[in-house]
């Protein structure tokens, strides 16, 4: 079904404990800024860093119940899908991420080749 080859670059974002529990921090990947959230229930999420509303830095927001609340004007988004909650912003981009045996954050950054 798929004609192109999907491959990805793995970025090591360092140990998870560099991010305080329940908070988020930003990383620069190529030209893009992304944010990693370390939710209290142990789930880790990777999303675009800026809020589509007025570019608020989501990393400074409050997480909970699988959502992130932007620190600027309190718009809410789903962490897992990036979908807006109660607002009609565009969905945030999300990226696959996992944690290595050693506790490091591994971001899978897509690069598509035909």
């Amino acid at each position: 079904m798929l004609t192109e080859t999907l491959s990805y670059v793995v970025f090591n974002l360092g140990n998870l404990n560099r991010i305080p529990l329940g908070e988020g921090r930003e990383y620069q990947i190529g030209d893009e800024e992304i944010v990693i959230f370390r939710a209290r229930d142990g789930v880790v999420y990777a999303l675009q860093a800026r809020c589509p509303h007025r570019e608020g830095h989501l990393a400074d927001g409050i997480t909970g119940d699988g959502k992130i609340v932007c620190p600027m004007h309190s718009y809410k988004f789903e962490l897992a899908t990036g979908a807006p909650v109660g607002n009609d912003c565009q969905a945030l981009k999300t990226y696959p991420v996992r944690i290595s045996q050693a506790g490091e954050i591994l971001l899978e950054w897509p690069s598509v080749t035909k």
Partner: protein
Amino acid sequence: MSEKQKLVVIGNGMAGARFVEDLLARGGGNQFDIVMFGDEPYGNYNRILLSGVLSGTHQAQDIFINSLAWYEENNVKLHAGVRVQRIDRITKTVIGADDIAESYDKLVIATGSSPFVPPVEGIKSDEREGNKDGVFVFRTLDDCDGIAKYAENAKSAAVIGGGLLGLEAARGLANRGVETHVVHLMGHLMDVQLDGKAGKMLRNSMEQMGVNVHTEKATTAILGNGHVTGLQFKDGSALECDMVVISAGIRPNTQLAKDAGLAVERGIVVDDTMTTDDPDIYSVGECAQHRGMVYGLVAPLWEQTAVLADRLTGRKTEAAYTGSKLSTKLKVMGVDLAVMGRKEPENDDDEVVLYSEPSRGVYKKLIVRDGKLLGAMLLGDTSTAATLLQSFDRGSELPENRAELLFDLSGETKSQSVADLPDDAQICNCNGVSKGAIVGAVKGGCTSLKKLCDATRAGTGCGACKPQVEEILQFSAGDLLTEDASAHYYVPGVPLAKPELIAAIQAQNLKSVSAVFAALANGKEDPGSKAGLASLLKTIWHDQYEDERDARFINDRVHANIQKDRTFSVVPRIYGGVTSPDELRRIADVADKYQVPMVKITGGQRIDLLGVKKEDLPGVWKDLGMPSGHAYTKAFRTCKTCVGSEFCRFGVGDSTGLGIQIERKFQGIEFPHKLKMATTGCPRNCSEATTKDIGLIAIEGGKWEVVVGGAAGSKVRKADLLVTVDSHEDALLYTGRFMQYYRANAKYLERTYDFVERIGIEKVRQVVVEDSEGIAAQLDADIEAAVAAYVDPWEEAHTPQHPSQFVNLLSAKETAQIRSLQPAYGD
């Protein structure tokens, strides 16, 4: 002499009072002199919300519908607290306690019903009249009070009866931290409304919230001498408990009617016009029996009162009540359950649509006959309840694809599903409010939930339709939507009012925000509630509070106020607005060194360094060598001063000295909202003390006026005088005591101007100055503890709370490894 007819109403409950309201709304005040009798010594209250009072989501004072003043304003003569003993139909007179008699032309009996107490041994006390200690029924505000008080010292409680009311009582008790058991005679819970499968799932849900359920248990005796120690069952088993709430059904109060010789069967028999067999006597509510039915829910009786009011006023002489279709929702937090109509099919060709997903506790069942809905049961997911209720009420044709009735198939948000309903669709089934009426009220300016509910009465009955009302508000108000800090809850995500929340936190020793969510919100971490809880926990536990930084707003994580470009503002504390050349020099040096884009004198008599990078905050604080001014948080901000007696020719008090003293003492203490003060050396008020949260105004004779609840922000309000004192010590004392009273009792984000208005300055003065509640010493001790626990947050410049506390960007490294996958990624 009045030419009006005289109308007497016996019963001031949901039906009696509602009937009088209906009558007045139809101009009945001009046709009748109205007299009411009520057994309770006050106006009427919303009985439905007693469940909320018991579980702590409502305060008793919030459920009153009409105050005594209301009756006066509407020329209704109310005999509050007077029980009617007899109706004399020959002289057409009603006779009550203390020989109070009222003649009538027309009489309405709305005496409601009483709890049914099954014949069980050991209910009565051996020693005195009445029940054994710890035996309760659940019908009135007094019952509710009694249960709540007794529960404070009880370890375990049993509720006899697993119907709607019994389950609501059980949830209420469980919320109060009592080990709770429900004892039910039949094979499954709510057997009147639910089939066996749904009953079993409901049982699981109840058990998950810590309520123990025992079915097929016939209670034969209540054990214990003097007070309850347990229950004895027919099968020989027993259960230990300290209290019992009996909720085994209701019996209509028909004795008065029976004694007067009216036709009474199960209830007082009425026809379609709500008339008894005496043409001048009517009956509505739970005491009435219509076409063989006696109703135990409010929706039917509100239809009845409307019909009777229509007829008596002559508004609609043809009005008739033809019976009601029954539907209800369970008001137990954490369980979604809606039921309507039949629970089982009756004919062979009745169609049953069933969906069951026990792992999620979801069960849905529809009974359909000739394409129309005869009954429905929705457990665990009630997203389609509104639509189903519409079809049920109207008997409208159902869509071919029955699945549409079970699920929100469109995948659209719920607001759209309510949006799709026609304007005449009824949203509030207690008050009969249509969608059109709600939308109309929103357009008319009711843009907060509270205003909207108050104006339309939607959601003011059992409250189950509130989410839908809110949805309508959201889509019809759009940008105009205004917030109302979740009317009763302290924070939206934990359904408890502040006093109950504090009680639960203390009783269960909850010291962190995540512990509160785990214990009191089924583990759901509502992000909108975190900051409010963090503030409250700090207030309760002081230095024992387990600080979780992610619960704080960014300002409180980095102790500075975020700006639109993610830089921060730094406002060092300048006590009483008095600074020194040395301090000013340091501020100037910092501004140079960190290239601060703007240095501004604030309206709070200090200096703001705006545009500081997050990474630079610790350096800025270290170099300033001044404590935090807390310009970023819900805490004590500043005490503005004027020059006062030291320099000013009018000054009669040392406002600068007192202001500095105050700011040094109370700096940084957290409050439900920010708290600002000012001291002024004379009533000319140069520091604007009369519009501060707390103001101290020097007056002639060495005295200070302490004023509270002032505002000059989005709202302007002159502060109220709390007390006049004659020393700085007393000024500090009452300031601190008021502060603590506000801290302990205000809702999150409630400024003192709203708080003082809500409580009333008289009450505030009684508690804070006259010590009417005997808590002054405790308030003083609590505020002193907060003062003692204060630590300057800018100390974190030296000892950051986490290595990346002030870091925006962490480094990433690309690993050599590149994988290629066929055919998809993201395994």
